[in-house]
Every structure is written in structure tokens, then in C-alpha cells.
């Protein structure tokens, strides 16, 4: 049993003990903490605190739940000089993330065209197992995708000039190094470019439900309740999974697993050859994921344009933002009054950078970066903004969405896909799924309450509430 002490309403501490180099900090309400105690979340957060070069604390965000090695919803910063990088601290789905696209359309416009629109999107965006991507790309093209990121997509007609300015990292981590990407990763990546994937990934048409911060919402292009927006939740597909596995295996071959509390905590010194190679390959996978979401955004714009008979620009389909919630990044933070270079691992956690940070796109720099928190299928999602407080207390990080509380295995037993569909449709949400079983696995009841996760983020000051959006139509992988 992990000893966890309540500090205030939404902050908990696991004091340093045993091999921990630092204490752990958990952002949770009583209700969320109760769930965290049910699985290995807290011991996983403590294990991360044992890794070399960890700075300040090992953190758990409000949606934290059990993962492999590191918990999901975990944040850890390691010193660049004498800290480590760990594939398990990023996750298998490198740059799994969320993109939000705005429109000038109203819910009533969607209602009139919803069947056509969803059919059009289903036809355009490949989803599910074994569904080939719409276009085939060569190995050389894949190389360009991984090195140039979204710039490649825009140069090749899959986006508007300026789209890149509305993405985390401008849709390209310059640290990408193709020489560090294995042949198997290339093989898995080539057929899947521009596909949604499966599991918890989805594409959702939503409408703005409530605006909490009018000024910031306006800056983000969210103007009033009823406005239609589109959310895409997807990652780097098999390519990212392969890179995670490749480096997990080469790190354990090189450094051995003796002394690790969990094999999935394997790591390498950040500045070692292997550490740098993983960072280069991870960055390449991150760029691939941004291009993936860019391609889907392109097809979504095309689908809307066709169904509504107007150019996507006339429909106001600007990208709001795109966040990576499984990633490690070299960043500069102020630690105990001193500037420090650290490698921040966010696994199931979103960057939440404050107003003024150079990494925040110019158009948003006065209000802080948009933070996109998807709910589960059929429940609300949220837009938050990055805060100064997050810079101070969580290395500029907050939650990433609704954490899972029921196993997929249990979910399939409990919820039949057809019934899940009926229930959602009764709430006025149209659903398309690549597999019925997949639909039951993602039934809204299997997730933690996203409303509570967002409330705690806001209360802890690590992500400020801006707007709530609710689903109108869902396409699930």
C-alpha cells in the first residue's frame, strides 16, 4: 500500500521513501484518488521517482490510471545533463494526440446534413484494422514525412499555408533522425499514413455547449454555443509502436534489467548514443502522427466542403490547435528560481504552456496554449488554456482526457456494441464504428468522469476552463 498524504483539496503527496530520488505529487480529488488506489497507479508514480536525474517530483495528473511501467497520466522531467529518457515514459503510441478544427456552421446546419456528412467522412477517412490508407506512399515519401512533418503535407496540397502555425511544435520536431528508424518501423508505417487507427481513437463532430472564458474562447475561434467543431484523436499507428519496442529492446540489451522495479521502466541516459537515437526516432514518429492528423483534417475539410457545397475556407474551417499527449521533449523550465534544461515526459498528459511562452503560437501567446481534453465516446470534451501555475507546479502539464476505469475485456462482456449505439443515438449522437466489439469496448461508462478530471485541472490551476463541447456524430476506429 502506497503512503499518500493529502495536502489540500486537489493535491496529494507520496513522500520520498526507499529508492525514490524525489517525492511524488498527485493532482486528484477524493473521488479520483479513490479510483487511483484501486490499481497500480500510485506505485507506478513512485517507481518513476526512482529513475536517475528526475527533477522536483514524479507527477500524476487527475486522469492518471495504471499503465506499463509509467502510469498513464504521468509526467516526469529529467535533467538533460544527468537524467534519462525512457520509451515507457512516452508510451507505445508516440504522439497520440488531439486536433480540433473549428467551423462557422451551427448545430442546425449539421442536423440537416448529418447522414450525408458522416457517410462522406467514413468514405474518406480510413478507420479500423486492415483498412488500407487512401493513398500509398513510397519509402522516400515516408522519409520526407518523418523529417519535414506537416510542412510536407502542406507542400503536397494536404493543407493550407499557415496550418502549421496552429499545431504544437508547428507539426515538426526538428530532432527527427531517420537513421534511427528501423526497417520494421518503415514497413508498418507505410500502409497506414492518414488512417485513424483503432481502439480509443475517434473522429467526432461536436458542438460548443458552454463557454467559460469568453475572451480566450474567442481568441481560439470558438464564438458561441451551437457552433460546430471537429475533434480527431489519433496517433502514430504501427510506426510509433515499432519504434517504442525497438528502443525498449535495445536499451534492455545494452543496460540490462537488473535493479529495475519494472521491465517497462527501461531507460538510457538522455545524452548517451542510445538515448539520442531514441529521441531522434521518437521525434520522427511524432512528425508522422502530426502528418496523419493533418491528412485527416484535409479529408474532413473536403467532406464538409462537398456536403455543404462551399469551400472549406468559406466554412471557416481553421485548425484551432493540435496537441501531443504521449511524448518526451527537451524544454527549458525554471526550477527553484534557476533556468534548467530538462526532458519532460508526458505520457497521457498534455502540455499546458502559459501565456508568453515562445512555444505557444503567436496568435495564442497572449492567452496561453489551447489544451484539448477529449472525453470518452458520447460524453463531453473540453478546451482549456495553459497557465502560469502549470509552469510552476507540473512542468507545464495537465490531464489528457478521461482515464479508463473498466477493462476492455469487462466492457465487452457488459455492454453490447448495438446497445451502446442505441443509447448514443437516443442522446442524439450518430455513430459509425469499424467494429461492434470496438464500440462496446469504448462505451462511455468505462471511463472516468471527464467533467471531474477537468474540474480538478481547473481547481489545481494547471489548466484553465475555456469551453465545453458535446458530441453530435462519432466515427470510431
Amino acid at each position, binding site marked *: 500500500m502506497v503512503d499518500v498524504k493529502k495536502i489540500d483539496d486537489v493535491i496529494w503527496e507520496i513522500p520520498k521513501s526507499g529508492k525514490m530520488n524525489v517525492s511524488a505529487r498527485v493532482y486528484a480529488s477524493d473521488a479520483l484518488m479513490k479510483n487511483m488506489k484501486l490499481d497500480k497507479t500510485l506505485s507506478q508514480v513512485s517507481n518513476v521517482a526512482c529513475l536517475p536525474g528526475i527533477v522536483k517530483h514524479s507527477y500524476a495528473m487527475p486522469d492518471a490510471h495504471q499503465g*506499463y511501467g509509467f502510469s498513464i497520466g504521468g509526467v516526469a522531467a529529467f535533467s538533460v545533463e544527468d537524467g534519462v529518457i525512457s520509451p515507457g515514459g512516452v508510451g507505445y503510441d508516440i504522439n497520440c494526440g488531439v486536433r480540433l478544427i473549428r467551423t462557422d456552421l451551427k448545430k442546425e446546419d449539421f442536423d440537416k446534413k448529418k447522414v450525408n456528412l458522416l457517410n462522406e467522412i467514413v468514405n474518406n477517412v480510413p478507420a479500423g*484494422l*486492415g483498412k488500407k490508407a487512401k493513398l500509398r506512399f513510397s519509402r522516400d515519401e515516408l522519409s520526407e514525412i518523418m523529417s519535414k512533418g506537416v510542412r510536407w503535407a502542406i507542400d503536397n496540397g494536404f493543407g493550407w499555408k499557415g496550418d502549421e502555425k496552429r499545431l504544437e511544435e508547428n507539426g515538426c520536431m526538428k530532432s527527427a533522425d531517420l537513421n534511427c528508424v528501423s526497417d520494421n518501423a518503415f*514497413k508498418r508505417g507505410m*500502409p497506414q499514413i492518414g488512417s485513424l487507427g483503432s*481502439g480509443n481513437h475517434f473522429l467526432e463532430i461536436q458542438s460548443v455547449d458552454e463557454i467559460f472564458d469568453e475572451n480566450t474562447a474567442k481568441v481560439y475561434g470558438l464564438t458561441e454555443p451551437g457552433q460546430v467543431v471537429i475533434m480527431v484523436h489519433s496517433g502514430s499507428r504501427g510506426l510509433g509502436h*515499432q519504434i517504442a519496442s525497438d528502443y525498449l529492446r535495445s536499451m534492455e540489451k545494452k543496460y540490462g534489467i537488473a535493479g529495475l522495479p519494472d521491465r*517497462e521502466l527501461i531507460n538510457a541516459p538522455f545524452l548517451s548514443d542510445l538515448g539520442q537515437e531514441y529521441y531522434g526516432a521518437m521525434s520522427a514518429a511524432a512528425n508522422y502522427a502530426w502528418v496523419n492528423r493533418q491528412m485527416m483534417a484535409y479529408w474532413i475539410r473536403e467532406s464538409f466542403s462537398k456536403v455543404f457545397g462551399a469551400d472549406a475556407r468559406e466554412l471557416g474551417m481553421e485548425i484551432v490547435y493540435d496537441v501531443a499527449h504521449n511524448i518526451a521533449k527537451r524544454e527549458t523550465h525554471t526550477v527553484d528560481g534557476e533556468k534548467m534544461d530538462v526532458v519532460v515526459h508526458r505520457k497521457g498528459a498534455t502540455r499546458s504552456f502559459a501565456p508568453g511562452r515562445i512555444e505557444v503560437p503567436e496568435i495564442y501567446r497572449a492567452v496561453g496554449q489551447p489544451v484539448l481534453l477529449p472525453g470518452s465516446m458520447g460524453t463531453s470534451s473540453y478546451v482549456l488554456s495553459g497557465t502560469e501555475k502549470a509552469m510552476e507546479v507540473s512542468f507545464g502539464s495537465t490531464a489528457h482526457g478521461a482515464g479508463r476505469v473498466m477493462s476492455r475485456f469487462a466492457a465487452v462482456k457488459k455492454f453490447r456494441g448495438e446497445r451502446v449505439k442505441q443509447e448514443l443515438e437516443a442522446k442524439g449522437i450518430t455513430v459509425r464504428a469499424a467494429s461492434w466489439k*470496438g464500440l462496446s469496448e469504448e462505451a462511455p461508462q468505462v471511463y472516468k468522469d471527464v467533467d471531474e478530471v477537468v474540474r480538478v485541472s481547473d481547481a489545481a490551476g494547471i489548466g484553465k476552463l475555456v469551453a465545453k463541447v458535446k458530441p453530435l456524430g462519432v466515427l470510431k476506429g
Partner: protein
Amino acid sequence: MKKYDFLPHTADAKFVAYGKTCDEAFANCAVAMFSVMVVPETVKPKIKKLLKIEAEDLESLVYDWLEHLLVLLDSENFILSSVGRIVISKIDEGYLLDAEFTGDTISDDYDILGFVKAVTYNDMEIKEKDGVWHITVVVDR
């Protein structure tokens, strides 16, 4: 003897594969993993594949074996029908796996039940008890 059982797990699929020998348990691991996605018994043995891999210990051999099958799934849409021959032998620096297996390409003929993204070491366990090998694996979905 049963080939495998699925166990409860919060986020993902956890199974234990059985075998009278280590070889047989390795084969059943592969069948169990594919049973998350399709009904392996219905998959036609149209394509034959050969594989030889080495790893430093049995755990990493399970990891690499299953991952190799996922590479085939993602790159060639290959789904497993059955493992015809599999031999695991001790070598100087670990273990060698030599296998021959069959399967088909995903098509509309097959019902897709779910998905596997990656193999993990989470809760992995390999043990022999009363003459039966047990291999426990969690796969990420």
C-alpha cells in the same frame, strides 16, 4: 488441453497460454493474441511464413515473437491461422526460435473483433507447473 485463457485487465488484453512443452505454449501465445482480432480457427492457411529469431531470455523471446507477427499484420495485413512447427532451443547467448506458420490476408471474409497495437512486458510470466507451461502476456490495444 485448453490453448489459452483471457484474464481481467484494466486497459488491455491479458492472456495466459498453455502448452505441454515450452514450444507449444509459445505457439498458443500467438493464437491467443490473434484471437483478440479474429477467430483464428476460421482463418484460411493460404500463406506460409518462416521465422528464425534470437533473444537474450525467454521473456524477450516471447516479446520479439509476438511483435514480429504484429509487423506482418501492419505491413502485409497478415492474420494468423495456425503455427505448424515451432522449436525453441537454448543457444550460447540466450534462445533461438524457429517457426513455420500459416495465415491469410485480412479481407471482408473475416469478422474483425478488435485490435492489438503492441506487445508489452507488463505482468509477463513464464513458468512450468506440474508439467504444463504457462505464458502470461498483456498486449496493448
